[in-house]
């Protein structure tokens, strides 16, 4: 296991470094930071002083090393737009996005897995056909359309749920959560559902395909022949096997959810990372964009590693090797 972990960490390090290089290049070459940061009427000497103080006259490798060194300490510079440290902005916005992604993942799993199992057990049943048809619509409708339709139905017509924002949040000091207030729960429902729809159909279809295959396998036929009850064959024996690939896909998709969250967050004006990023793009707020890029890269790498380790924990066949 140890050599495996070392190799994994080595790869992860390289990926993060590459993402860091991309962020840095963006910093360096997308527009001139000095122009964006200084006043319209700044003199050449003032600009030069600023350039010197930002370290932009150093050789490029030295600048890169400084950039990475700062990033490691969580220092991504000052946002051009609101003149506050980027790390502060991220710390403010991160809880909103993570709670949204968490809620969406739970929703996707809680609905996707049972639907997948049910449609696998009766592949030709009426429910199966309906779910399959609806899921096709779910996969092919863009997120912003679903989001707007949901707002129209639940917020505008029925007036059950709010159409934007996070509702009341409770500040725990290091984390501000919407899960401790009723308005927070009401506010997260629509965006989480919007974000979850695609994953839900994906998980449903995956579980269905896996279950159908596993129900044909020898060990399930043997379990039947031993007279074990159908319920425990389906939900205890077969499902555990069918969930192996779901674990991988869900892990990977959480990264995707964070990326998808940009659209959902704009539609619902959810004060998360995605909204921060969209605004940063509009204002060419390079430090925020760079930090977001690094952050998403880090999340993907971390999730990948986590999935590998969990896989080894769940599947005994992968445990002994190393």
């Amino acid at each position, binding site marked *: 296991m140890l050599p495996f972990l070392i190799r994994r960490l080595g790869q992860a390090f390289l990926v993060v470094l590459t993402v860091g290089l991309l962020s840095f290049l963006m910093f360096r070459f997308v527009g001139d930071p000095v122009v964006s940061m200084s006043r319209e009427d700044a003199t050449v000497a003032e600009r030069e002083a600023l350039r010197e103080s930002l370290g932009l006259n150093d050789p490029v490798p030295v600048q890169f090393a400084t950039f990475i060194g700062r990033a490691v300490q969580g220092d991504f510079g000052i946002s051009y737009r609101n003149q506050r440290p980027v790390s502060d902005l991220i710390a403010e916005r991160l809880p909103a996005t993570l709670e949204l992604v968490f809620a969406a993942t739970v929703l996707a799993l809680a609905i996707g897995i049972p639907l997948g199992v049910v449609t696998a057990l009766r592949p030709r049943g009426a429910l199966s056909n309906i779910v399959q048809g609806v899921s096709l619509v779910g996969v092919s409708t863009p997120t912003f359309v679903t989001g707007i339709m949901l707002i129209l139905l639940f917020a505008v017509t029925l007036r059950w749920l709010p159409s934007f924002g996070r509702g009341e949040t409770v500040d725990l000091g290091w984390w501000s959560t919407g899960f401790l207030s009723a308005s927070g729960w009401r506010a997260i429902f629509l965006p989480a559902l919007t974000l979850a729809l695609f994953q839900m159909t994906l998980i449903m279809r995956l579980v269905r395909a896996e279950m159908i295959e596993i129900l044909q396998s020898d060990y399930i*036929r*043997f379990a039947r*022949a*031993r*007279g074990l*009850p159908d319920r425990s064959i389906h939900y205890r*024996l077969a499902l555990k096997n069918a969930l192996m690939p779901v674990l991988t896909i869900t892990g990977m998709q959480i990264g995707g959810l964070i990326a998808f969250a940009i659209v959902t967050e704009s539609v619902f004006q959810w004060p998360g990372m995605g909204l921060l990023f969209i605004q940063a793009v509009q204002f060419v707020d390079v430090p925020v964009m760079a930090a977001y890029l690094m952050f998403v890269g880090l999340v993907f790498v971390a999730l990948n590693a986590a999935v590998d380790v969990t896989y080894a924990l769940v599947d005994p*066949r992968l445990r002994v090797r190393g």
Partner: protein
Amino acid sequence: MRSIPALDNRLRIRGLEVLYGGAAAVDGIDIDAVPGEIVAIVGESGAGKSSVGAALLDLVDPPGEWRASEMTLDGVPIDYKRTHVRGRDISVIFQDPQTALNPLFTVESQLVHMVRHHLGLSQAEAKRRAVEMLDEVGIADPETRVRAYPHQFSGGMRQRVVIALALACRPRLVIADEPTSALDVSVRAQILELIRSICRDRGMACLLITHDMGAVAAISDRAVVMRHGKAVETAPTGQLLAAPTAPYSRTLIAAVPPVDRKIDRFALPDTGAVVSDPSLERWLRANETDAAAVPLAVTGLGKTFGARGFLKRGTPVHALKDVSFEIGRGEIFGLVGESGSGKSTLAQIAAGLLKPDQGEVRLLGKPFSAATPDRALRRYRDGMQMVFQDPFSSLNRRMSVLDTIMEPMHGVPRAEALRLVPALLERVGLPPDVMTRKPHAFSGGQRQRIAIARALAGRPSLLICDEPTSALDVSIQAQILNLLKDLRDDLGLSMLFITHDLPVVRQMCDRVGVLHRGSLVELGATEAVFESPRADYTRALLSYLPHLPELQPAS
């Protein structure tokens, strides 16, 4: 058939039929079994023997259905909705231990789950029973092993776990569906013995469903020979094997290669005279360039898998270690070994498909070693052809028979080829008018004949046969083996014949090498090796094989 009073019967089946959409897989069959008795249901693929087991468990896959005028266990009609419980009263042992166990659950949890459900034992009692069962099926250190996962057992041990699962609730009848077909000979003998002793000790009846006459001979008391869904003969095993009365059982038994004597050709009905075209024979022999060259010489061959290196996984596996032998002109050289012995690796190296790490192969004098450049390989393979194990995957399903056989005929004008292909087909025992058909129109045996015709079309001096009959039924195997022998005699072909099946080796090969964990432990003339083996391993292998009584001439 002995007449047994119905009340004594553990199992009594009358007029069982299994239908799949109107076609009868089982067409009115009667079977009886008394406690402690092993009744073999033997037949070739498609005979319907597995459907008997499925019907007994009421697990016939839809749209199939079954009916019987009588089907009772200890006098009570079998009914899984009311009186009987699947797994508790009637259980089953599956064929392949690699796939029959759920990989994500420990052996203990699978055993406990079952006995708790059927017998209502407490968790602690169920755990005790699990350990007891593993002990009973001969797994050493059951207290520790019970907590292991299936992949932590070897193939034979896994089959013992499968048996433990099947028998955990002490069923009155067990259906063993090809319980040893996926196992090596050494393991097979032990598993059969285990089934025998459990049936005897517990008074459990057993239906042994198998195509393997050796297994029938080894442990069954009575045997039912099935063909096309009907029982053609039911008799005590000894009597059936020595003096079968039905013509089909006679053919079937005559096709089984005996291990304890050599027969020249298998006695098969209506084989007919082989059609041999003299011009075809001339063409086939015209390629013999150097009559003096040794067809195949292997010297000090070594191959290791699993490269070592910094942070690389796995330990290296020595697939072959210092293997040397030669095959003479017109000789059939047998290479036997159990799975993992390295025999397929050797076949691939000899065929120039895999490079050796050490040593050298000479094919008709052309050298092949680790240093041989890839571009020299095409020339190296000249004069060699292969016949593979599985005729279903070795033929391109989109190519007609004509195109398949013409493929290795390099530089032969089409008109000439169109004359040669029908002659080749006739030579391997197929009608020449099948040329335009695709492989799906043929049975396994016919496909293997096409594969042999294709190999001949390359005009080889050496034919490498890698388990050429392992995927075939025994009567088809006998036909293919007869054909290969004829080809050797008529064309002077040399053959490297690779198999795990010792009786087949005895019938086919002039000389034999025994591979064990990559080393050649025995090398000699076939009769000498079988009569007085020198290596302990060969002796052990031979001792596992059941001996069939000599077939008495038909009266």
